[in-house]
């Protein structure tokens, strides 16, 4: 087992609405990413993927609030740190974040080199401008971005180029963990491929030690990450390697999700898509039992009232369902 780069233990965070109601968006999430590994998070809109990413960065600005749990980056516990301290000491050097709308994250009035100066000087205020430019030019060249980009404004770049620039800028300090939240969902397939290749290169060359990749596109996740975990209503419902999760999912929700994959390959045209009817539960009052029970076609009365813990099985896999693995697999096989 490699060294743990990011360890999250029983993390709980909530949103407080303007009517002072609590919405438990991340509710008891635990996982570990080892050095050199990447983990993908899949799940439908509103299941807490992006909130989990923000929580891990210590980005606790209202309405998001921290409740409990530990976030340990390379042995250093950052939970409970003030957002300002996190920004000065952790963000960029330990953990980097690429948001969903990274393309809009660049200030249109500044040249790209200014962003890099900002990032580097936030951690090392005395660094010389010339030195920064050298570092930046070398990194851009290595990642296949033309060094002229440094003296351009964001508006001069295409969508895919902007996204790649944002990734290069945010990883300039060689962070230990890179959190990518839907980095390619606004791009067309060709630009998406370039972005993914760049992220893989960053991993291979050791500029980033581990990666957390969030997307709802499962084929992409399968091709990019080593492990996949599926989130539902603020909890992790299943975790395993990419291969296991796509071809042999156990939890009924993960099973439905994997059945809805559409790829241009022979045989997909005839298959029946797995549609899951209904809507996720209201997280203001999460159900006592299984959160998926209302939509699960295999649910029984016990599922609705029994709190279900994470159950380990197989080789380091985990799922959250009352039923046994064999029982579930038999049900799927008979369908």
């Amino acid at each position: 087992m490699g060294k743990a780069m990011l360890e999250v233990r029983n993390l709980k965070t909530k949103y407080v609405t303007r009517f002072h109601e609590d919405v438990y968006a991340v509710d008891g999430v635990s996982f570990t990413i080892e050095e050199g590994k990447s983990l993908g998070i899949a799940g439908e809109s509103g299941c807490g993927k992006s909130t989990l990413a923000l929580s891990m960065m210590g980005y606790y600005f209202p309405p998001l609030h921290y409740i409990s749990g530990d976030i340990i980056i390379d042995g250093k516990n950052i939970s409970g740190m003030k957002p300002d301290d996190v920004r000065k000491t952790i963000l960029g050097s330990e953990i980097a974040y690429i948001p969903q709308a990274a393309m809009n994250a660049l200030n249109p009035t500044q040249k790209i080199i200014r962003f890099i100066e900002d990032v580097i000087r936030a951690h090392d205020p005395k660094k010389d401008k010339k030195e920064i430019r050298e570092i930046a030019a070398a990194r851009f060249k290595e990642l296949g971005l033309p060094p002229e980009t440094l003296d351009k404004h964001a508006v001069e770049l295409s969508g895919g180029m902007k996204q790649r620039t944002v990734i290069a800028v945010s990883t300039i300090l060689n962070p230990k963990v890179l959190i990518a939240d839907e980095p390619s969902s606004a791009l067309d397939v060709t630009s998406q491929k370039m972005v993914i290749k760049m992220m893989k290169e960053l991993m291979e060359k050791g500029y980033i030690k581990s990666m957390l990749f969030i997307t709802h596109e499962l084929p992409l996740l399968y091709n990019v990450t080593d492990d996949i975990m599926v989130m539902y209503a603020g909890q992790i419902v299943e975790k395993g390697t990419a291969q296991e999760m796509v071809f042999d999912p156990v939890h009924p929700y993960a099973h439905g999700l994997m059945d809805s994959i559409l790829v241009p390959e022979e045989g997909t045209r005839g298959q029946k898509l797995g549609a899951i009817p209904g809507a996720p539960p209201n997280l203001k009052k999460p159900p006592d039992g299984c959160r998926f029970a209302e939509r699960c076609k295999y649910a029984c009365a016990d599922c609705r009232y029994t709190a279900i813990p994470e159950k380990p099985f197989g080789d380091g896999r985990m799922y959250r369902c009352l039923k046994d693995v064999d029982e579930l697999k038999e049900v799927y096989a008979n369908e």
Partner: protein
Amino acid sequence: MSEEVRNNTDFENKPLCLSGRGVTKIFGFGDKKTVAVDHVDFDFHEGEFVSIVGESGSGKTTLSKMLLGLSNQTEGQILFQGKPRDISSGRKKKEYWKGIQAIFQDPFSSFNTFQKVDNVLLDCINMRGGKSLSKKEKFDMMTEACNFVNLKFAELTNKYPFELSGGQMQRLMIARIFLLKPKILLADEPTSMVDACSRATILDMLLNLRDETGMTVIFITHDIGLAYYISDTVYIMEHGKFVEYGKADEVILQPKAAYTKRLISDVPKIHEEWDLSTVDQLSEN
């Protein structure tokens, strides 16, 4: 329609529903001229599920606006049921829209915020000439439409569209189409803003709708996997031109045009390896 029929129906023998000859759209003039759609020909038959696939900026949306009659073509002719389409006046446009309806990408901006769900559906019944029907009949029709898309009408009455989720709104949009029963449905990326599970539900509903009413569905998307799953015929669009078209199986499994090949190779897959090395050639170009 069963899967077997879906794959084997020959639409070429069916009557034409919408066709175009040399359809062109040019924006601007002189040096700043942009040819968004460049002399395209197409034949959409009755009951056919057609996909138009292309990347951003390939002219998909411009073409769909022309098909809907929201903008005029610069050159060429669009024929509706064999006759040249006439949308020269507001009255004629309204008449044309009885035959063609659309579902758009963003369900949140497709509805009138001040109109309740019942009124949305009631309008559709009135548009189809059901003004004189009794209250009970109208209610039954609305319930039937909602049942078709797995919504409960009783739960929707007196609600405003913004109180529904994105998936529910998109399904309500399909319920509208179910009541209107147009000859052609144009769906412009209807699933790009909903997640994978709702996407499967919406796709199934569109297929059912086609089977039940026999309408032509024109599906516009950038997702080639989705187009392959759902359509009978696929048109691939690049820089305002159709570079390849034909039956879904032929176009996707044995692509001939270089652009189609590239598009397919750029999509991440499950059973085949995703070749990232082709990216280098792209960045050099």
